[in-house]
């Protein structure tokens, strides 16, 4: 999913990183709109609680805003850096949660949010962002992280490895396993033989865009 450093948009974002470091607020907003949805989707897949995931990313942004001047790199590096910060905070939260007595846990956690996502819904509403993320969140954590960092954060294997503290090869393996599983899940739901319900054209326009449609 398109490392976004390619093309004009990537250039804009590279400039935005530098300008935000110099204090430009609009550039910071631009970066937020590009990166925050990705961070949030990543955190949600790991935490399985939307409001906790929002808290985690909010905290991450406080740190990002504070430490931005010391960051070195382009937009790809910036995404990786933000992902690392978010990941640390996410893991902190998961650790705190583990220590919490069971009685305090919200009902969702007890039941296990992994209450199998009904893949039949997928066929109905196409592959919405929500449906796709829920499928990815069902993967074992290392696979889900590898897929999300690469496909949603847009990092290459090496950068994703830096975030995860793994080698690029290990990330590729985890992502590959995750994708195999996802393909199997899709096969469960796919309508029989080539009914072609999912229109393909224009996909490239959708991939990895992020913020521009929102404003």
């Amino acid at each position, binding site marked *: *999913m*398109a490392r976004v450093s390619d093309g004009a948009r990537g250039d804009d974002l590279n400039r935005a990183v530098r300008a935000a470091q110099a*204090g430009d*607020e609009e550039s*910071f*907003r631009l970066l*937020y*709109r590009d990166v*925050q*949805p*990705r961070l*949030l*989707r990543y955190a949600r897949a790991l935490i399985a609680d939307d409001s906790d995931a*929002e808290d985690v*990313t*909010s905290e991450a*942004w*406080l740190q*990002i*805003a504070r430490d*931005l001047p010391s960051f070195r790199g382009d937009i790809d590096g910036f995404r990786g850096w933000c992902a690392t910060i978010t990941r640390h905070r996410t893991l902190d939260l998961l650790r705190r949660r583990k220590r919490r007595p069971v009685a305090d846990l919200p009902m969702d956690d007890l039941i296990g949010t992994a209450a199998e996502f009904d893949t039949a819904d997928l066929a109905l509403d*196409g*592959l*919405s*962002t929500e*449906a*796709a*993320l829920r*499928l990815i969140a069902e993967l074992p954590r290392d696979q889900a992280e590898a897929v*999300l960092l*690469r*496909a*949603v954060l*847009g990092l*290459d*294997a090496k950068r994703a490895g830096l975030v995860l503290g793994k080698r690029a090869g290990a990330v*590729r*393996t985890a*992502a*590959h396993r995750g*994708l*195999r599983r*996802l*393909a*199997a899940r*899709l*096969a469960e739901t*796919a309508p029989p033989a*080539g009914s072609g319900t*999912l229109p*393909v054209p224009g*996909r490239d326009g*959708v*991939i*990895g*865009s*992020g*913020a521009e*449609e*929102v404003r």
Partner: protein
Amino acid sequence: MNDPPDRRTAERLLRGDAAAHPALAEMLAGAAGPARPAELAGEDAAVAAFRTRREPRPRIQHRTLTRLLTVKALLAVLALGGGAALAGGSGHLPGHQGPHPGPRPPRIGTPPDESSDRATLPAVPSPPSPPSPSQGRHASSPGPRNPTHRPSKPSKRKKNGKPERAEKSKKRKKAKKARKPKSRHGGPNRSPAGRARR
């Protein structure tokens, strides 16, 4: 269309080649789909944090100041370390007492020395004799000990009472560093570095 992708196909897909596996590409495109307004709810809070961070400028000055101080402290420590070497050379440290007076002053300087020591430690092949005690000592107080760590040799030389000893010991220190790498290949037991280490 929904065949499980092989490794290469997966990699192509993740690099943005949707044709590698259209069904999965569709799904991943969904996962990376456009931002929804709810996902950006924290924008103003983040921007506020960005703004307040920029106001107190002194923070940066403070940081550079601390950095400067650290450099100064390091220099001071180096000077101290040199002093220790001098003291060791001038015979104030009788061989058997070596470990005691040695560590105190140089301890401040442990970080830089430690790193350099750690870098070289594994390179020196451990002597045939049981390495555990010497390694333990290195771990507890590394680099700076080296000048005081030659209990027998310096005390012997002390009897000769050569005046330029301090300088010599410095020179030897340098020479030792230069020789260390060689000891990797040649017999470590014969090299002075190897001896000093035990």
